[in-house]
């Protein structure tokens, strides 16, 4: 699984640390880190929570282009 750069960028735009985002979403930092590193595939429910906190759409954060 590829690393999730859009989450990292959106988090930086909001000036949030991994820990702050994890707390806002209600998960541990290790889970947030695993999502960003592409080591864990989150459920759609968690994806939506992350999108809501970062003010982005699912497409913007989780869509992967074919190439």
């Amino acid at each position, binding site marked *: 699984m590829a690393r999730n750069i859009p989450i990292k960028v959106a988090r930086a735009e909001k000036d949030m640390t991994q820990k702050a985002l994890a707390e806002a979403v*209600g*998960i*541990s930092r290790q*889970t947030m880190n*695993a999502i960003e590193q592409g080591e864990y595939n989150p*459920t759609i429910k968690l994806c939506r929570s992350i999108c809501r906190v970062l003010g982005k759409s699912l497409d913007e954060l989780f869509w992967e282009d074919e190439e």
Partner: protein
Amino acid sequence: MKKRKNKLDEMQEQKMLHIESRGCWIAFIGLMAVIAAQLVYYGRDCGNQIIGETIVFLCMGCYIVFECVRNGVWDRKFEPNLKVNICASLIAAVAAGVLKFLIVYRERGTDDVSLNAGIAAGSVSGINTFILCFVLLSIMLVAYRWRKNRLENGLPDEQEDK
């Protein structure tokens, strides 16, 4: 009693399930090994000693099999068909045959008569195990197919369409 809130997030929950799953299989294989070792070491007289292990082992096995069938799942890698059932029954038959051979051979001594008696007992035990396993697997296969069919065709959306 008040139900405590789950303190794990979804990834931790998945990891916990993996750990518990591995623990379950370690216990399952460990119990099987302990029962087999006691049967070989103590022979037929160990009935009272292995009753606890056998009950736990059977409960675990029955729970896994019945829950799989109830939820319409068979196996991760193997197809639910006759060929796989025959192969699984053969493996069980060989294992039971070897175990029985070792029990009889150890009880009777190490002469040629004991060897022949061990082979005969092992063969009979192997054939019995094969028949028993094959019949049970066939029953489970029929139950699985019936249950899966029911789960697949009994979904709410399908009922609404009708």
